[in-house]
Protein backbone atom coordinates (compact mmCIF):
# COMPACT_ATOMS: atom_id res chain seq x y z
CA UNK A 1 0.00 0.00 0.00
CA UNK A 2 1.37 3.43 -0.80
CA UNK A 3 2.17 5.86 1.97
CA UNK A 4 -0.53 8.19 0.67
CA UNK A 5 -3.26 5.64 1.29
CA UNK A 6 -2.08 4.91 4.81
CA UNK A 7 -4.36 6.23 7.53
CA UNK A 8 -2.45 8.53 9.88
CA UNK A 9 -3.46 8.86 13.51
CA UNK A 10 -2.03 11.64 15.69
CA UNK A 11 -4.42 11.58 18.65
CA UNK A 12 -6.92 9.32 20.38
CA UNK A 13 -10.52 10.21 19.60
CA UNK A 14 -12.06 8.54 22.65
CA UNK A 15 -12.96 5.22 24.21
CA UNK A 16 -15.54 2.57 23.44
CA UNK A 17 -16.92 2.95 26.97
CA UNK A 18 -18.14 6.47 26.17
CA UNK A 19 -21.90 6.17 25.67
CA UNK A 20 -22.10 8.52 22.68
CA UNK A 21 -19.15 6.85 20.96
CA UNK A 22 -20.51 3.42 21.74
CA UNK A 23 -23.80 4.27 20.05
CA UNK A 24 -22.07 5.50 16.89
CA UNK A 25 -19.77 2.48 16.83
CA UNK A 26 -22.78 0.21 17.11
CA UNK A 27 -24.36 1.83 14.05
CA UNK A 28 -21.15 1.62 12.04
CA UNK A 29 -20.65 -1.97 13.08
CA UNK A 30 -24.00 -2.88 11.54
CA UNK A 31 -22.58 -1.63 8.25
CA UNK A 32 -19.32 -3.53 8.77
CA UNK A 33 -17.42 -0.24 8.97
CA UNK A 34 -15.57 -0.79 12.25
CA UNK A 35 -11.96 -1.89 11.95
CA UNK A 36 -9.90 -3.34 14.78
CA UNK A 37 -6.19 -3.18 15.49
CA UNK A 38 -5.08 -5.95 17.83
CA UNK A 39 -1.99 -5.16 19.88
CA UNK A 40 0.05 -7.21 22.31
CA UNK A 41 -0.20 -5.84 25.87
CA UNK A 42 3.44 -4.69 25.78
CA UNK A 43 2.83 -2.74 22.54
CA UNK A 44 0.17 -0.57 24.16
CA UNK A 45 3.05 1.48 25.58
CA UNK A 46 4.23 2.52 22.14
CA UNK A 47 3.62 6.01 20.80
CA UNK A 48 4.76 5.43 17.23
CA UNK A 49 3.90 2.32 15.30
CA UNK A 50 2.77 1.11 11.93
CA UNK A 51 0.10 -1.57 12.11
CA UNK A 52 -2.66 -3.19 10.08
CA UNK A 53 -6.35 -3.38 10.88
CA UNK A 54 -8.34 -6.59 10.67
CA UNK A 55 -9.39 -5.39 7.22
CA UNK A 56 -5.73 -5.26 6.18
CA UNK A 57 -5.57 -1.46 6.01
CA UNK A 58 -2.31 0.07 7.12
CA UNK A 59 -2.36 2.66 9.90
CA UNK A 60 0.50 4.89 11.08
CA UNK A 61 0.04 5.89 14.71
CA UNK A 62 2.06 8.77 16.12
CA UNK A 63 0.61 10.12 19.34
CA UNK A 64 1.96 12.50 22.01
CA UNK A 65 3.95 10.93 24.83
CA UNK A 66 1.53 12.14 27.49
CA UNK A 67 -1.30 9.95 26.22
CA UNK A 68 -1.43 6.18 25.96
CA UNK A 69 -3.15 3.56 23.88
CA UNK A 70 -5.42 1.22 25.78
CA UNK A 71 -7.81 -1.60 25.13
CA UNK A 72 -10.88 0.11 23.66
CA UNK A 73 -9.16 3.28 22.44
CA UNK A 74 -11.02 4.72 19.46
CA UNK A 75 -8.49 6.11 17.00
CA UNK A 76 -10.92 7.50 14.48
CA UNK A 77 -14.66 7.80 14.20
CA UNK A 78 -15.94 9.01 10.86
CA UNK A 79 -19.20 8.68 9.00
CA UNK A 80 -17.90 5.75 7.01
CA UNK A 81 -15.17 4.30 9.19
CA UNK A 82 -14.04 3.69 12.76
CA UNK A 83 -10.80 2.20 14.04
CA UNK A 84 -10.49 0.81 17.54
CA UNK A 85 -7.68 -0.80 19.57
CA UNK A 86 -8.11 -4.26 21.01
CA UNK A 87 -5.43 -5.57 23.39
CA UNK A 88 -4.73 -9.27 23.23
CA UNK A 89 -4.70 -11.13 26.53
CA UNK A 90 -1.65 -10.90 28.78
CA UNK A 91 0.22 -14.17 29.12
CA UNK A 92 1.33 -15.10 32.64
CA UNK A 93 3.43 -17.93 34.02
CA UNK A 94 2.08 -18.80 37.46
CA UNK A 95 4.73 -20.41 39.67
CA UNK A 96 4.51 -21.99 43.11
CA UNK A 97 7.56 -23.09 45.11
CA UNK A 98 7.37 -26.27 47.16
CA UNK A 99 9.17 -24.82 50.21
CA UNK A 100 9.75 -21.32 51.65
CA UNK A 101 13.47 -21.67 50.95
CA UNK A 102 12.80 -22.41 47.28
CA UNK A 103 10.37 -19.47 47.17
CA UNK A 104 13.19 -17.18 48.30
CA UNK A 105 15.43 -18.61 45.59
CA UNK A 106 12.69 -18.16 43.01
CA UNK A 107 12.27 -14.51 44.00
CA UNK A 108 16.01 -13.97 43.77
CA UNK A 109 16.26 -15.51 40.29
CA UNK A 110 13.15 -13.68 39.02
CA UNK A 111 14.76 -10.40 40.04
CA UNK A 112 18.08 -11.38 38.56
CA UNK A 113 16.36 -12.23 35.28
CA UNK A 114 14.53 -8.87 35.33
CA UNK A 115 11.17 -10.57 35.03
CA UNK A 116 8.09 -8.44 35.60
CA UNK A 117 6.08 -10.09 38.36
CA UNK A 118 3.19 -9.73 40.75
CA UNK A 119 2.46 -11.71 43.90
CA UNK A 120 -0.79 -13.46 44.58
CA UNK A 121 -0.89 -15.42 47.81
CA UNK A 122 1.75 -18.13 47.52
CA UNK A 123 2.02 -17.70 43.75
CA UNK A 124 4.47 -15.69 41.72
CA UNK A 125 2.89 -14.42 38.49
CA UNK A 126 5.44 -13.64 35.78
CA UNK A 127 4.59 -11.50 32.73
CA UNK A 128 5.43 -13.49 29.60
CA UNK A 129 6.66 -11.14 26.89
CA UNK A 130 7.64 -13.58 24.17
CA UNK A 131 6.91 -17.27 24.60
CA UNK A 132 6.48 -19.44 27.68
CA UNK A 133 9.47 -21.59 26.74
CA UNK A 134 11.88 -18.67 27.23
CA UNK A 135 10.81 -18.62 30.88
CA UNK A 136 10.39 -22.31 31.60
CA UNK A 137 13.82 -23.03 30.09
CA UNK A 138 15.34 -20.74 32.72
CA UNK A 139 13.44 -22.52 35.49
CA UNK A 140 14.66 -25.89 34.21
CA UNK A 141 18.22 -24.50 34.35
CA UNK A 142 17.90 -23.16 37.89
CA UNK A 143 15.73 -25.68 39.74
CA UNK A 144 15.43 -29.41 40.15
CA UNK A 145 12.32 -31.36 39.11
CA UNK A 146 9.72 -31.07 41.85
CA UNK A 147 11.06 -27.82 43.29
CA UNK A 148 8.43 -25.73 41.51
CA UNK A 149 5.00 -26.09 40.00
CA UNK A 150 4.00 -23.82 37.15
CA UNK A 151 1.08 -23.28 34.82
CA UNK A 152 0.17 -20.97 31.97
CA UNK A 153 -2.52 -18.35 32.35
CA UNK A 154 -4.03 -15.63 30.15
CA UNK A 155 -6.17 -12.75 31.33
Amino acid at each position, binding site marked *: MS*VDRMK*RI*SSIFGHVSDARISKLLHELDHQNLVETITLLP*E*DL*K*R*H*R*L*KVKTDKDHQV*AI*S*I*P*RNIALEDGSVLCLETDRAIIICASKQKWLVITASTPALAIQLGYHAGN*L*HWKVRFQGAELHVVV*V*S*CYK*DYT*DRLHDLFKPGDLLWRKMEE
Partner: protein
Amino acid sequence: MGAARVGIGGPVGSGKTALIEQMLPAFKSIDISIAVITNDLVTAEDADRIRRSGLIDPERVVAVEAGACPHTVIREDPTLNITAADELEIKFPDLDLILIESGGDNLASTFSLDLVDWWMFVIDVAGGDDIPRKRGPGCLQSDLLVINKQDLAPYVGVDLDRMLLESKESRSGKPVIVTNCRAQMGINKIVDLIVEEVLLL
Protein backbone atom coordinates in the same frame (compact mmCIF):
# COMPACT_ATOMS: atom_id res chain seq x y z
CA MET B 1 4.34 15.28 18.52
CA GLY B 2 8.04 15.46 19.35
CA ALA B 3 10.95 13.62 17.84
CA ALA B 4 10.97 9.88 17.41
CA ARG B 5 13.21 8.09 19.91
CA VAL B 6 15.20 5.04 18.88
CA GLY B 7 17.24 2.93 21.30
CA ILE B 8 20.48 1.21 20.38
CA GLY B 9 21.62 -1.43 22.87
CA GLY B 10 24.07 -4.28 22.89
CA PRO B 11 27.23 -5.66 24.50
CA VAL B 12 30.42 -3.64 24.94
CA GLY B 13 32.39 -3.43 21.70
CA SER B 14 29.64 -4.73 19.41
CA GLY B 15 29.71 -1.55 17.32
CA LYS B 16 26.89 0.64 18.62
CA THR B 17 28.86 3.89 18.37
CA ALA B 18 30.29 2.91 14.98
CA LEU B 19 26.75 2.25 13.78
CA ILE B 20 25.66 5.71 14.92
CA GLU B 21 28.64 7.25 13.14
CA GLN B 22 27.53 5.55 9.93
CA MET B 23 23.87 6.42 10.30
CA LEU B 24 24.40 10.15 10.95
CA PRO B 25 25.42 11.04 7.36
CA ALA B 26 22.75 8.73 5.97
CA PHE B 27 20.01 10.54 7.90
CA LYS B 28 21.54 13.90 7.04
CA SER B 29 21.36 13.05 3.34
CA ILE B 30 17.58 12.69 3.60
CA ASP B 31 17.15 15.84 5.73
CA ILE B 32 16.33 14.11 8.99
CA SER B 33 17.19 16.41 11.88
CA ILE B 34 18.91 14.30 14.50
CA ALA B 35 20.41 14.29 18.00
CA VAL B 36 22.22 11.62 20.00
CA ILE B 37 22.21 10.60 23.65
CA THR B 38 24.96 8.27 24.82
CA ASN B 39 25.05 6.33 28.07
CA ASP B 40 28.28 5.47 29.81
CA LEU B 41 28.99 4.15 33.26
CA VAL B 42 30.96 7.09 34.71
CA THR B 43 32.40 8.87 31.67
CA ALA B 44 31.26 10.63 28.50
CA GLU B 45 33.56 8.54 26.30
CA ASP B 46 31.07 7.68 23.55
CA ALA B 47 29.57 11.19 23.48
CA ASP B 48 33.03 12.73 23.15
CA ARG B 49 33.83 10.37 20.27
CA ILE B 50 30.67 11.37 18.39
CA ARG B 51 31.18 15.08 19.13
CA ARG B 52 34.71 14.87 17.73
CA SER B 53 33.57 12.99 14.63
CA GLY B 54 32.49 16.14 12.79
CA LEU B 55 29.34 14.30 11.69
CA ILE B 56 26.96 16.26 13.91
CA ASP B 57 26.75 19.57 15.75
CA PRO B 58 28.41 18.73 19.12
CA GLU B 59 25.57 20.58 20.88
CA ARG B 60 23.25 17.86 19.64
CA VAL B 61 25.14 15.14 21.51
CA VAL B 62 24.32 14.60 25.19
CA ALA B 63 26.03 12.21 27.58
CA VAL B 64 24.16 10.46 30.36
CA GLU B 65 26.38 8.94 33.02
CA ALA B 66 24.48 6.02 34.47
CA GLY B 67 26.71 5.55 37.49
CA ALA B 68 25.37 2.01 37.71
CA CYS B 69 24.50 -0.96 35.50
CA PRO B 70 23.69 0.60 32.11
CA HIS B 71 20.37 -1.20 31.75
CA THR B 72 18.99 0.51 34.84
CA VAL B 73 18.76 3.89 33.08
CA ILE B 74 17.18 2.57 29.91
CA ARG B 75 14.74 0.14 31.50
CA GLU B 76 14.14 0.18 35.27
CA ASP B 77 14.26 3.97 35.69
CA PRO B 78 14.85 5.80 32.40
CA THR B 79 14.20 9.24 33.94
CA LEU B 80 17.69 10.55 33.22
CA ASN B 81 17.37 9.65 29.54
CA ILE B 82 13.79 10.89 29.23
CA THR B 83 14.87 14.22 30.70
CA ALA B 84 17.84 14.42 28.33
CA ALA B 85 15.58 13.72 25.34
CA ASP B 86 12.97 16.26 26.50
CA GLU B 87 15.68 18.90 26.88
CA LEU B 88 17.04 18.19 23.40
CA GLU B 89 13.54 18.61 21.94
CA ILE B 90 13.20 21.99 23.66
CA LYS B 91 16.65 23.14 22.54
CA PHE B 92 16.21 21.90 18.96
CA PRO B 93 12.51 22.14 18.04
CA ASP B 94 13.20 20.88 14.51
CA LEU B 95 14.36 17.47 15.72
CA ASP B 96 12.94 14.48 13.87
CA LEU B 97 14.90 11.74 15.59
CA ILE B 98 16.86 11.11 18.79
CA LEU B 99 19.17 8.11 18.87
CA ILE B 100 19.70 6.81 22.41
CA GLU B 101 22.75 4.60 22.73
CA SER B 102 22.90 2.38 25.78
CA GLY B 103 26.08 1.82 27.68
CA GLY B 104 27.48 -1.58 26.75
CA ASP B 105 25.50 -4.21 28.60
CA ASN B 106 24.80 -7.92 28.61
CA LEU B 107 22.37 -9.99 26.56
CA ALA B 108 19.54 -9.35 29.05
CA SER B 109 19.48 -5.63 28.33
CA THR B 110 16.23 -4.18 26.98
CA PHE B 111 14.76 -0.69 26.56
CA SER B 112 11.66 0.63 28.30
CA LEU B 113 8.98 1.76 25.85
CA ASP B 114 8.48 4.70 28.21
CA LEU B 115 11.81 5.92 26.85
CA VAL B 116 11.95 4.83 23.21
CA ASP B 117 9.50 4.20 20.40
CA TRP B 118 11.53 1.41 18.89
CA TRP B 119 14.88 -0.18 19.67
CA MET B 120 17.58 -2.29 18.14
CA PHE B 121 20.10 -4.65 19.68
CA VAL B 122 23.59 -4.85 18.21
CA ILE B 123 25.70 -8.00 18.52
CA ASP B 124 28.79 -8.94 16.53
CA VAL B 125 30.16 -12.12 15.06
CA ALA B 126 33.33 -11.89 17.16
CA GLY B 127 31.19 -12.28 20.26
CA GLY B 128 30.45 -15.85 19.14
CA ASP B 129 27.86 -17.46 16.89
CA ASP B 130 26.14 -18.97 19.91
CA ILE B 131 24.71 -15.60 21.02
CA PRO B 132 21.32 -16.07 19.28
CA ARG B 133 21.02 -19.57 20.80
CA LYS B 134 21.37 -18.08 24.28
CA ARG B 135 17.98 -16.39 23.72
CA GLY B 136 18.78 -13.28 25.73
CA PRO B 137 15.93 -10.75 25.97
CA GLY B 138 17.96 -8.25 23.90
CA CYS B 139 18.06 -10.62 20.96
CA LEU B 140 14.49 -11.84 21.39
CA GLN B 141 12.57 -8.68 22.17
CA SER B 142 14.30 -5.93 20.19
CA ASP B 143 12.47 -4.51 17.18
CA LEU B 144 15.61 -5.07 15.11
CA LEU B 145 18.59 -7.34 15.71
CA VAL B 146 21.83 -6.16 14.08
CA ILE B 147 24.68 -8.62 13.57
CA ASN B 148 27.75 -6.46 13.06
CA LYS B 149 31.34 -7.11 11.95
CA GLN B 150 30.23 -9.49 9.21
CA ASP B 151 33.72 -9.30 7.72
CA LEU B 152 35.30 -10.92 10.79
CA ALA B 153 33.35 -14.17 10.55
CA PRO B 154 36.05 -16.22 8.75
CA TYR B 155 38.72 -15.03 11.18
CA VAL B 156 36.86 -16.05 14.32
CA GLY B 157 35.49 -19.35 13.04
CA VAL B 158 31.89 -18.21 12.91
CA ASP B 159 29.30 -19.73 10.57
CA LEU B 160 27.47 -16.50 9.75
CA ASP B 161 24.72 -18.19 7.73
CA ARG B 162 23.86 -20.39 10.68
CA MET B 163 24.04 -17.45 13.08
CA LEU B 164 21.65 -15.52 10.88
CA LEU B 165 19.27 -18.46 10.54
CA GLU B 166 19.18 -19.09 14.29
CA SER B 167 18.64 -15.39 14.93
CA LYS B 168 15.66 -15.28 12.59
CA GLU B 169 14.20 -18.49 14.03
CA SER B 170 14.26 -17.06 17.53
CA ARG B 171 12.61 -13.72 16.69
CA SER B 172 9.12 -14.60 15.48
CA GLY B 173 9.51 -12.80 12.17
CA LYS B 174 11.07 -9.61 13.52
CA PRO B 175 13.91 -8.33 11.31
CA VAL B 176 17.60 -9.17 11.48
CA ILE B 177 20.16 -7.15 9.50
CA VAL B 178 23.81 -8.07 8.98
CA THR B 179 26.24 -5.14 8.89
CA ASN B 180 29.85 -4.25 8.56
CA CYS B 181 29.81 -0.74 9.96
CA ARG B 182 33.41 -0.01 9.02
CA ALA B 183 32.57 -0.66 5.36
CA GLN B 184 29.08 0.92 5.54
CA MET B 185 27.51 -2.42 4.65
CA GLY B 186 23.88 -2.78 5.71
CA ILE B 187 23.57 0.75 7.07
CA ASN B 188 21.02 1.92 4.51
CA LYS B 189 18.78 -1.04 5.33
CA ILE B 190 18.67 0.08 8.97
CA VAL B 191 18.06 3.71 8.04
CA ASP B 192 15.27 2.70 5.65
CA LEU B 193 13.64 0.59 8.36
CA ILE B 194 13.72 3.46 10.86
CA VAL B 195 12.31 5.85 8.26
CA GLU B 196 9.47 3.48 7.49
CA GLU B 197 8.64 2.01 10.89
CA VAL B 198 9.42 4.87 13.27
CA LEU B 199 9.49 8.13 11.37
CA LEU B 200 6.49 6.79 9.44
CA LEU B 201 7.52 8.61 6.26
